[in-house]
């Protein structure tokens, strides 16, 4: 008996939940070891993520980042490509936004600048994804190593530009000048207040809607188009793609471009949503978290939205830990994230033999198993 003989709800429902429970259990043990009550900590995080005034808005704000980077990893995974360059692609996407706005915000009306900046984020991210894709497809270098290197190269480019020619005059910190007034994506709470609802302030903005549209787009592309079928086929066997009359190298480059574009759009949320200038390290590890999100979400948009919500809650709730405890801080979230990647990624099938055993022993009495 193996994975394929298990019903779908166990494979995509029960096993991920078991993995999550295992990761949280280990995290709980560590919290207990350092002398705090893990259940109290969890309560604080849940309150911080959902209950307090405006908390939900912040949670969904972080969720937006993770949807973009999670989708980026997932699209590449469908072609069996491991894109761990989301971090760098997001940085370069942010650079694209910055360049478009900084050059045009004094010439064009704000709305037009924003409408140009959104595709710029995707285009710049796509370029940073397609180069490793090209190197893999045409030059045979391994995408994992190249994307790692490209993260560092992107980071150096950002330092070099933001501390150099793009640095705001008279500024000491490495960041650009602020964008002109009106160049930002509409904030959700402002829109809702205008519509007459009373909503508390949060950085949640239009990017969230764009992220949900991207989810639909990815779902449609992968499962409802011929191209998506070819992408998945390439993941299983490059030879199949060749027989079908397509060039796997082109598919790899295309997939990496889409993946990079999605990662690049993460910068919309941070740069065009709240910062309204390009700052250093605005990606703060969200690109890497995207890997955990894609793994937990089993590379399906619905799973990715759920996993992003989980990580959004962890990030927002984790910030609350700083206020409530002396000894645990938001770095705890990083630790939990590492454990989740370990259990739902590298040890994804840890519980499978046990589950298979239990399932088949339960099935036996009915005589149908």
């Amino acid at each position, binding site marked *: 008996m193996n994975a394929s003989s298990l019903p779908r709800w166990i494979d995509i429902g029960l096993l991920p939940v078991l993995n999550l429970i295992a990761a949280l259990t280990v995290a709980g043990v560590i919290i207990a070891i350092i002398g705090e009550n893990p259940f109290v900590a969890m309560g604080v995080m849940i309150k911080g993520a959902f209950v307090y005034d405006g908390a939900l808005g912040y949670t969904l704000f972080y969720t937006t980042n993770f949807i973009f980077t999670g989708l980026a990893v997932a699209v590449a995974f469908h072609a069996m490509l491991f894109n761990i360059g989301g971090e760098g692609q997001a940085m370069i996407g942010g650079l694209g936004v910055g360049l478009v706005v900084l050059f045009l915000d004094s010439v064009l009306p704000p709305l037009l600048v924003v409408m140009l900046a959104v595709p710029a984020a995707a285009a710049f991210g796509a370029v940073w994804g397609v180069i490793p894709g090209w*190197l893999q497809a045409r030059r045979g270098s*391994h995408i994992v190593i190249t994307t790692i290197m490209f993260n*560092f190269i992107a980071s150096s480019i950002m330092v070099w530009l933001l501390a150099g020619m793009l640095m705001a005059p008279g500024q000491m910190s490495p960041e650009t000048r602020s964008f002109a007034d009106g160049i930002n994506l509409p904030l959700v709470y402002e829109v809702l207040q205008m519509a007459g609802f009373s909503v508390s302030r949060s950085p949640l903005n239009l990017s969230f809607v764009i992220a949900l549209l991207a989810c639909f787009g990815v779902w449609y592309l992968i499962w409802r188009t011929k191209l998506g079928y070819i992408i998945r086929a390439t993941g299983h066997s490059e030879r199949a793609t060749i027989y079908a009359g397509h060039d796997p190298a082109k598919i790899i480059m295309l997939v990496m471009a889409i993946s990079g574009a999605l990662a690049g759009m993460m910068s919309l949320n941070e740069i065009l949503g709240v910062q309204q200038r390009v700052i250093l390290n605005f990606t703060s590890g969200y690109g890497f978290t995207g890997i955990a999100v894609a793994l937990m979400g089993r590379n399906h948009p619905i799973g990715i939205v759920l996993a992003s919500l989980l990580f959004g809650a962890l990030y927002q709730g984790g910030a609350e830990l700083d206020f409530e405890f002396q000894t645990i801080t938001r*770095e705890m979230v990083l630790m939990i994230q590492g454990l989740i990647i370990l259990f739902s990624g590298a040890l994804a099938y840890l519980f499978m033999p046990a589950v298979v055993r239990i399932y088949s022993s339960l099935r036996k009495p009915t005589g149908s198993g």
Partner: protein
Amino acid sequence: MADLWLQFVLTIDATLRVATPLILCAMAGLFSERSGIIDISLEGKMLMSAFAAASMATLTGSPFLSLAGGILVSVALSLIHGFACITHKGNQVISGLAINILASGLTVTLGIALFAQGGQTPFLNKSERFTDIVLPFAEQAEHVPVLGTIYKEIISGHNLLVWVALFSVIVTGYVVFRTTFGLRLRAVGEKPEAVDSAGVSVSGLRFQAVIIAGVLCGIAGTYLSTAHGAGFIREMAAGKGYIALAALIFGKWRPVPALLACLMFGFMDALAARLQGVEIPVIGHISTDLILVLPYLLTVILLAGFIGKASPPRSIGVPYIKER
């Protein structure tokens, strides 16, 4: 001229210090990857052991116990990597990534819990660290031109772990290319089914390889916090594990070329530090960011086959499934 010469010698001296953790991690990666296990968790293992070593030094006051602590923790992470990748045939890149992220979070979390200094460990005194070993006659040698300066500045005045790092290259070269174990190790990374049919355990060999990698990363981490530095600072591995990985690839998974790549990358680092804000005649300012990006850029170019060809062990990243 004499000043320029001294500057050069001091830069070479700094190169050795910066390259030490790279060399140890590159050798660690060599063992692991030659056996077919991708190891991007060099970074996390080094970070975690740097923390463990500094904590041990603070708690016991002994540099050697700190080394033991550093190695122990790093090996423990190696075993997790092995458990995921060898026992459960999990994805090696994902496992490595998990270890890196786990280490980032765990070091700060434990650091705050233990020492309440925002994730750092307390400053270590001289007696708690591996201190520089001044070789005999180093002071007198100062007056001998050229050779004397080289002896005093480059050869003398390094701590024990620098020598361990250099020694590890010789040992790695010997073990991997001159022993039965090494032959099997290389075979298991190329054609594990051949090793299996010879009656040698593939899993056993791969576990030995990742444990050796753990030991070497443990020494590297200890070097960072209790020899080169005086205490643990958060994120102190600062990408060195990845540079070591780049150096390993650059050295085409061979000990001596990998050592040279580490020294080259270390030299770039040392040079960038020395050129910070310095005006060079004719050229003017050199952006240090551009020097620091070279290791990554060169590795990409090499991997793309533009300067020679780096081909990894054939079975790298592929879990071994025994035929039934």
